[in-house]
Structure formats: structure tokens, C-alpha cells
């Protein structure tokens, strides 16, 4: 394995993180939280120093292959999480390292689960860094680094493939670097659009920033104890719409940009995604009608919660713990479905569900008519055996990790509903679960081991399971592997 190049990539990531740490420093200066600001500043300077000195010497052999790509991505995420957690520990805002790690991993993986019992006690610097980590993690830190990378050979594609959510990564344009730039441009424009609309609706600028970044990355850290319940109905609708927009495959926006709206509207994944949302909102609205004053309010809460859960954001305007069982069950199912591939959301991804369903349908058909030949299609193209195979492998690995974690987390002795949804929310990068870890609760009560397991699940879920499992594979670390 090309260790030298892997560490070079890691140093690049540290450098990028160091540069981004200057942003919370700016917020700190505005809010005059000098004590915390100084610590963030020192961290930023040290990370930059490590990064810039480390990346000054480029390795001679820059060739990496699939293996190095996966390892570099998995390690990068661990490294940025550890470096990102340090400011929380040093400022003593989250004094326990494991808690701080949980919090920042929850941030970078755009989960949004918190171990904080009182969010509002945190300084603005830390709040900003937490929410900013969503924005960075949503599109991917390495994808960002790829834009700055002196890109020459195609090996960067391995990095992009390992970091981007979804079963198959397609480039928009021939060069990885240009694709990364297009992705970030779409991302930035959508984020700024949300910030402007929310500002216009009269939200405080700090809330606007944090909420928009949380929406963009489909993260879900809120900065108020009440979640998003305090915001006005209009603001909640704006957030709902943007959450759903960020859960759409970014190819959709690229097609529209290229004036190929026809292609965009034909994307079966996006159609299925919108269909699921509409169906879920309709059923839940009827189911919860009796709890709220009028239909408008019921639909608003239903739409917000459905949008929040299916895109794996995790904001809440109401405590859905108190909803009837049918609505809660629908939300749990949505947790597993997740957003579209190629978006910032997590979960199993709508495209995988569509492929899986069609495969099942074909198998049924084949059992009835053994001699019929039928292919599984998606977007007018035949899904190859390799693709279907990778979907089944992914789902198997996903549930393997899921159930092992479920068992380990259960050791702590909380209710099964809490444990099940805690693991589901971690591995799908959602945020809240049900019962104890519901939208108004927190993960604080879990023990250290459970928190570490959940931290691993969040990373595994964000990086599509395999990179993290590869790290654990002994054959990787053998010299002659």
C-alpha cells in the first residue's frame, strides 16, 4: 500500500480543516467570546501549520488504487473528527473526549444526534462549528480537497467514489476536479438561497446560518432547545422545502443547469422520492389530525417531519414521540429509505430501494414463468448483474452492522424502542430517534462503549459501510496484501 500518499491525503484534509476553523473564529469575534475564540484560533493555526508543512513535500509515487482510496477516505474522516473534536474539549464546553467525538462525528456525518442536554448553554463559536461541520460533511471534505488538489491523474476518482453517497458515482464532466467544483457550486448556491429567504422572513442571522448549513448537509443540529418549533410557520415551510431539495440527486440540478430539464424530470429515483414523500405526508396528516388545531397545522408538521426524516436531516418542529403508532412507524420506515443517491442525505438511498424492489419483482415473475427472460431497468437502462450484486452486498453489510450495533447498544439497558431507533438514526445519519432519543431528548445517557459504537455507525453510514469495514479487515494491513 502507498502509505506515503495516503498520509499526504490525510495532511491535505487537516490543512483544509485548519482553514475552515477560521470561520468560527470570525463568529467568536462578533460575539466577543474571546476565551473560546483564542482556543479555536490556536487550533486553526496549528492544523494549518501541520497541513501546509506536511503537504509541502509531495510523495514521489502518487499512484493510488481502489484500496488506498477507500483507506484514505475512511482515515480522513476519522482524522477530521478527532481534530474537529479537540476544540470542544479544550474549551471545556464538552469536556469529555468521547462525548466531543460523538458530537463532531454526528456533525461531519450530517447525523445531528446530540449528547448535549442543554444546547443553548454552548457558546456561539462552538454552535457555529457544530453546524458548519454539517455543511462540510454533507458534500464531503475530500470532495472539497479534490477541488484544491493539484489534479493530474485519475486516481482521485477512487477518493470521490469512496466518499460520495450512493451506489454508483457518475461524473458530470470528464475531470474529477471540475465535477467537484460543479457539485460545490450547486451546493453553495442552494445554501445561499436558503440563507437569503430565511433572513428575509425575519429570522435572526445566526440562526439562519446554522439552520441553513444544517439543512444543506442534511445534518440537523438545531441551536435551540425546542428544535425548530420556535420558528414561524412560514420559516418552517421554507426549511421543509429546502430539506427536500437537498435530498434530491444533484444530477437533477446539473441536468437543469444544462437545460436538459426533460432528462431531469425523467429521473426515476427523483420521481420515486417525491412519490414517497407525498404518500407519507398524506397518511401522517390524516393520522395526526386530531392532535392539532387545524388541517394546515397538521399538514405542516407532517410535511416537516417527513421531509426531515427521509432526507435524514433530523430537525423537528414537534415532539413526534407523542404521535400515534402508525405515524411513528412510517417515520421509522422512512429512516431506512433515506434520500436520493448523489445528494447530501444518508440512509439506504431511494435508488437502491427501487433496484431492490424491481429485483424482487423480477424474481417473483421468474418463479412463476421460469423460462421468461426479463431484465431489471432503471432510467431506461438495464441494471447490470454487478450493480444488483453490489446493492445486495450493501444491504447485507448494512444490516450486519446494524444488528451487531443494536445488540451492543442494548447492554446499557434502555428501552428497545430507544436502542433500535438510536442505532437506526446513527447508521442512517438522521439525528433523533424515538422514546429516550426522541426529538426533544438526547444521547447523553448512553455509556462510553455505546457512544463509540454509535460513532462508528455514523461514520459507516456516511461512507457507505464498506470503507469502514475495510479498515477493520486484517488482510489490509498485511505487508504483502
Amino acid at each position, binding site marked *: 500500500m502507498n502509505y506515503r500518499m495516503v498520509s499526504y491525503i490525510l495532511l491535505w484534509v487537516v490543512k483544509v480543516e485548519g482553514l475552515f476553523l477560521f470561520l468560527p473564529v470570525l463568529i467568536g469575534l462578533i460575539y466577543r467570546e474571546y476565551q473560546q475564540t483564542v482556543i479555536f484560533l490556536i487550533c486553526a493555526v496549528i492544523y494549518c501549520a501541520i497541513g501546509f508543512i506536511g503537504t509541502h513535500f509531495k510523495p514521489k509515487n502518487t499512484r493510488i488504487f481502489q484500496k488506498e482510496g477507500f483507506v484514505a477516505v475512511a482515515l480522513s474522516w476519522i482524522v477530521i473528527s478527532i481534530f474537529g473534536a479537540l476544540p470542544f474539549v479544550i474549551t471545556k464546553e464538552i469536556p469529555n473526549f468521547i462525548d466531543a467525538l460523538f458530537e463532531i462525528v454526528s456533525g461531519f456525518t450530517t447525523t445531528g444526534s446530540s449528547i448535549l442536554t442543554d444546547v443553548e448553554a454552548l457558546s456561539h463559536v462552538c454552535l457555529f462549528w457544530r453546524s458548519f461541520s454539517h455543511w462540510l460533511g454533507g458534500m464531503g471534505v475530500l470532495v472539497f480537497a479534490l477541488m484544491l488538489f493539484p489534479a*493530474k491523474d*485519475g*486516481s*482521485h*476518482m477512487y477518493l470521490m467514489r469512496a466518499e460520495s453517497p450512493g451506489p454508483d458515482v457518475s*461524473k458530470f464532466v*470528464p*475531470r474529477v476536479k471540475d465535477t467537484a467544483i460543479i457539485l460545490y457550486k450547486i451546493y453553495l448556491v442552494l445554501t445561499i438561497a436558503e440563507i437569503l429567504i430565511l433572513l428575509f422572513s425575519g429570522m435572526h442571522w445566526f440562526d439562519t446560518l446554522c439552520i441553513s448549513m444544517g439543512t444543506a448537509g442534511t445534518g440537523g443540529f438545531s441551536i435551540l432547545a425546542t428544535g425548530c418549533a420556535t420558528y414561524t410557520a412560514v420559516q418552517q415551510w421554507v426549511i421543509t422545502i429546502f430539506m427536500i431539495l437537498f435530498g434530491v440527486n444533484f444530477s437533477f440540478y446539473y441536468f437543469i443547469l444544462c437545460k436538459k430539464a426533460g432528462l431531469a424530470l425523467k429521473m426515476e429515483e427523483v420521481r420515486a422520492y417525491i412519490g414517497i414523500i407525498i404518500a407519507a405526508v398524506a397518511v401522517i396528516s390524516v393520522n395526526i389530525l386530531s392532535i392539532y388545531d387545524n388541517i394546515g397545522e397538521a399538514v405542516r408538521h407532517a410535511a416537516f417531519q417527513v421531509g426531515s426524516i427521509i432526507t435524514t436531516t433530523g430537525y423537528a418542529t414537534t415532539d413526534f414521540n407523542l404521535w400515534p403508532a402508525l405515524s411513528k412507524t412510517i417515520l421509522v420506515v422512512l429512516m431506512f429509505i433515506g434520500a436520493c443517491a448523489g445528494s447530501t442525505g444518508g440512509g439506504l438511498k431511494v435508488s437502491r430501494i427501487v433496484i431492490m424492489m424491481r429485483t424482487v419483482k423480477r424474481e417473483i415473475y421468474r418463479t412463476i414463468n421460469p423460462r421468461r427472460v426479463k431484465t431489471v431497468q432503471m432510467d431506461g437502462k438495464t441494471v447490470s448483474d454487478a450493480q444488483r450484486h453490489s446493492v445486495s452486498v450493501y444491504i447485507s453489510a448494512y444490516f450486519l452492522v446494524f444488528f451487531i450495533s443494536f445488540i451492543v447498544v442494548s447492554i446499557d439497558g434502555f428501552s428497545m424502542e430507544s436502542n433500535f431507533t438510536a442505532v437506526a438514526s446513527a447508521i442512517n445519519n438522521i439525528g433523533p430517534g424515538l422514546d429516550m432519543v426522541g426529538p426533544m431528548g438526547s444521547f447523553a445517557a448512553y455509556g462510553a462503549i455505546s457512544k463509540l459504537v454509535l460513532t462508528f455507525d455514523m461514520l459507516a453510514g456516511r461512507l457507505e459501510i464498506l470503507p469502514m469495514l475495510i479498515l477493520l479487515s486484517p488482510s489490509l494491513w498485511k505487508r504483502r496484501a
Partner: protein
Amino acid sequence: MQIVIVGCGKVGRYLVRELSEENHDITIVDLDSDSVRNTALEYDVMGVEGNGTSYTTLEEAGIKTADILIAVTQSDEVNLLCCFMVKKEKCKTIARVRNPIYSAESEIFKQELGISMIINPEREGAAEMLRLLQFPSAVDIGSFAKGKIDLLSFRVNKNSILAGRKVKDLTELQKYQMLICIVERGKEVYIPNGDFVIEESDIVSFIAHPGNASRIFRELGIFTNAVKSAIIIGMGQTGYYLAEMMIEAGMKVKVIDIDKKRCEEIAMDIPGADVIYGDGSDVKLLDEEHIEMMDACICSTNIDEENIIISLYAREKVRKKVVTKISHLEFNNVIQSLNLDSVVNPKETTAESILLYVRAMSNTTGSNVQTLYRLKDDSVEAIEFIVHKESELIGIQLKDMKLKDGVLIAGIMRNDKLIIPGGTDSFEADDSVVIATINKGFLKLEDILER
């Protein structure tokens, strides 16, 4: 520029490697999903799986905005059809066509089908071989500025007047407008300055006007007469074209092929050739045919290994020149270490011709690469640039330029005259400038400056 390459074979991949390094946006199209995927992963390019003759596939590959379509699949018909499909688009088209029947009609294709360039690998390879045979003392010949500057390489032998002397002391060569720009010694490569001492068995490359080359070789004490008789082993397409060309050039040709039917065909088509039916790798046969009486031996069977073995044997026997045809592109360093005389790779030659065309097209925007040669396992490059009229380098005397290490300005071609540059010379617009360098990745002339 945006380039679509149809066909992911050896030539296709070679083009992808070179062109992606020169910052072009490339999309590859191939039927085989594995080779598309692997190429797209190895190089920074986009892959489209599908049939290149289908317009839908080409559209997906971005043909509407592309500048060039290069069709290099196995099949001539597919290549021609590909180019024909996009006749309506504004992009230029290049097709590889190897069947001699089509090749003879290339003018019709160009006019009727609107194809910009038809290239035949075997013919290109044969032409390159012929050039080497006409100049047997050179190990390698490359030409710049549309053939007005040659880069010639030769091996310094024991009794050469060069051995053991400093470059600046070679006063007898100064009248010839030449410049020694690259010296290969064992595994090392040097860009020599005046104090560099040339040793025995170095391979020296110099820039010169083609007309002067034979006089320079004579001054160096190396015989330069063109080959008069040769034996060609293996009569594939390349051998066929070569035999034809050599006879036209007035050389005596003996050809050997293992296939009786092929021998009969050749005997019919090329009456001037002495056709022998037999196994070219049979030493007895070669001796029987008096290989030691020949000036040159060309090994052009379809099997690289056989060509190499026969060449190594022939090197000891023939008087002037051994040319080896190689089809593999990846084992360059191994092949170079074998001490063969001259190696010709028709696939590489084809790719280089296409590159020449592509580079010329992209030169409208700046002082970009026009021609590029790689020597010695790709560690040294000789590059020709055309000076763009807005270049910042125009008018600066060479002695005032701060060049990067390992860069030598070897020649300037102005109004068809070769200038061997000194400190007081400077560039002018539309000059062809040849530089030799051990730094890699120069994309435009301005890159030679230390910044």
C-alpha cells in the same frame, strides 16, 4: 479542448494518457464496460459505455460540444461510420483505417465523408522504418517544424572523435549549425553544458538541419550511406507497406513469411521483392539466405518476442541496421535495456501522428506544445513550441531569461532557417522553438521559466 475517443484499445489508451496530461477534457466510448471503467478510473476522463456508431451514445459523450472525435476501434468500418455519424457536427474527425483497400481511397473519405484525417498505423510504421533505413547511423530520428529540424540520436563508439572530449571543444562541428542537447549514459540522462565530457557508448542526440545531417555524421567518422539491401522477416501489413516503399526507393528487398498463401500474394503484388517461404525464426534459414550479406534486417512478425529474439541474432550479422517492430506499449523500459538497434512501434507512431494533429489544433490559443518526443524511458523530452504573438517571452534575450534547471533551448526555426541560439538571441512571434528538458509536464513555452 473537448475530445471524444471511440475505442479503448492500446492506441486509444495511449491517446488518453497523453491528452489527459495535456489538460484536455476527454470522454471515452467503448462497448466493453470493463475497459471503459478501468480507463476512466486510471485516468481523469469520463467513460461512456456503448456503441460509438450510435448517435445517442455519441451525444451522451458530448459530441455536440466536442472539438475532435477520434475513432480508433478494431474495425475500420466502425471507425468510418463513427466519423460519418457526426458529419453534421462542427467537430473534426480522425479515423484509423488499416485495410489497404480503404487506405487507397482515403481522399474520397476525406471529401465525401468529411473526415479530417485518415490514419493507417501500418503505413505510418513502415514510413518510420524507411526513414531509419535511409539514415542507418542514427538510432532514432525525430523531426520538428514540419520536417525542417531533425533530432538525431547515435551511439558513440570507441574510435569516435567525440569520446573523451568536452562539448565546448568540438570546434569542428560548429560550422554545421548543430547542438548536442541530450546525452544518455547507462540509466542516466544529461542535458549537457559546455564542460560536459562525452564518453564511449553514450547515446548522443543533436539538433540539426536535415540537409546537414549526413555531413555531420561524416565529420564524426560514421558511415552514412543509405541501406541498399535488406531482409524483411514477417510480411504483415507493416512489412507489406515497407517492402513496397523500399522497392520504390530503389533498395533490394528479400522478404520471408511463414504463410505460403501470403507469400504468393506478395510475389504477385510486389514483383520486385525476392519472396522466401519459410520460418524467419529459423537460424539455419537466415544463414542460408545470407543474412550477413545484407545491409539491414527488419523484424516485423506479429509476435513481439520473436521480433526481439531475431533482432538480437541479426544484430551480430547484418552490416548496418536492425529494425524491430514492437506492438506492446507498456514495456518500453525493458525493451530499451535490451540494446536493440532501432525499435518502431506502429501503434505509438499512429498515436503520435494523431497527437500532432490535436496539438496543432489547440495551438490557436497560446504557445502550446506542437511536437513532443520522449527519450530514454520517458525521462527526457524534446518539445517543439510555436511562439504565440502575445507571449511574454517575445523580445527578451535568452541570457536574461531565468530558466528552470534541466532546460535547454536547442533550436529556433524562423522563416525556414534554423538558428542555434546563443545568449543574445530572442524569440519572435511564430517561431518554432525546440527545447530539451528533463523536467516533465511543460504545456506551454512560458513554463520553461523559473517562477
